[in-house]
């Protein structure tokens, strides 16, 4: 079923734009150029962050961190190997991508850890960044319960990512 979602979505977008008499191919090209620009702008960050992640792993600090947090993670049903990803996800999007991609490469994209990392990345956002953008735009000083509620949603996301991967695969 999931095999057809992506092609069908593309087909729907193409047919709808053609129906509206828009230049479909031109829009795709413009978007593509925009995407490459975006990629160029995050490339230096990915280099720096993957460098840091590799250092963390080579030094043994990553293992230390996951073994320290393992009891809490096991209690929640989250694979302890994803500890670094869980910690960095709410703070930095590109760092989370670097850590997640490293996990997928190290354990394999179809392993339990690799899949869990992928679902975590796909179903959560860079919480603190989002909060600073939206509240910064209107000068909010008292955020009240926004941060705890958003972090709670993240925690639910990390747990559900681990549980759904275990159920579905």
């Amino acid at each position, binding site marked *: 079923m999931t095999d057809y979602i992506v092609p069908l*979505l593309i087909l729907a977008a193409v047919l709808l734009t053609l129906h509206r008499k828009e230049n479909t191919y031109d829009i795709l090209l413009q*978007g593509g150029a925009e995407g490459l620009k975006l990629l160029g702008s995050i490339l230096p960050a990915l280099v720096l962050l993957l460098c*840091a992640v590799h250092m963390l792993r080579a*030094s043994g600090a990553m293992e230390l961190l996951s073994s320290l947090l393992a009891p809490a993670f096991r209690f929640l049903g989250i694979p302890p190997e994803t500890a670094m990803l869980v910690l960095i996800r709410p703070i930095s999007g590109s760092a989370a991508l670097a850590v997640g991609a*490293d996990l997928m490469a190290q354990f394999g994209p179809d392993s339990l850890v690799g899949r869990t990392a992928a679902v975590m990345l796909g*179903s959560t956002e860079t919480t603190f960044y989002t909060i600073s*953008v939206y*509240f910064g735009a209107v000068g909010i000083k008292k955020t009240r*319960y926004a941060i705890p509620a*958003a972090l709670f949603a993240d925690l639910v996301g990390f747990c559900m990512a681990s549980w759904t991967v275990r159920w579905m695969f």
Partner: protein
Amino acid sequence: MVMSWIWSGIVLLSLFCAVLTGNGSALAAAVPQGAQAGVTLALSMAGSICLWTGIGRLMEHAGMTAALARLLSPLLRRVFPGTKRDPVLARELSGNICANFLGLGNAATPMGIRAVQRMSRSDGIATDEMCRLIVLNTASIQLIPANVAAVRASLGCAAPFDILPAVWVTSVCSAGLGVAAAWLLGKALRHD
């Protein structure tokens, strides 16, 4: 500034651990390897990112965001009662959520900012509806997580999209429970 601290912290921690565990040579080797892995990751994602930004643009032009927004409006009125009185706010809010749903981050953020601006009361205190908007945005309900699928595909995964149902279930649960938590906290912390 936060990133400077995080990056320096990671490097310092690695150095400290490597000295303690005697992994110095592995640490030195990891530096160029990691830098190369960054370029490899970026390049291996390039095709997917290029294609998906194009398709995202197409979905915008196809009016899919607007169609989704109409479908969503009954739910929106329950979570954000303010939209009943303010059709502009309703449009910006549903636009923000639907653009996020289709993975159009560039289109979603300006609409989200305009929505928060309309909600703001100029006293610098977050309202209940703002907090709910934050939770909905940070819980990230996304139909196709294209970047993650790109990484999976680049690592030789045969079915990079087979994680979609798990992603959907996870997002819906975290958004639902997050909004519920925000609602409960809003009730508990009400100060009249």
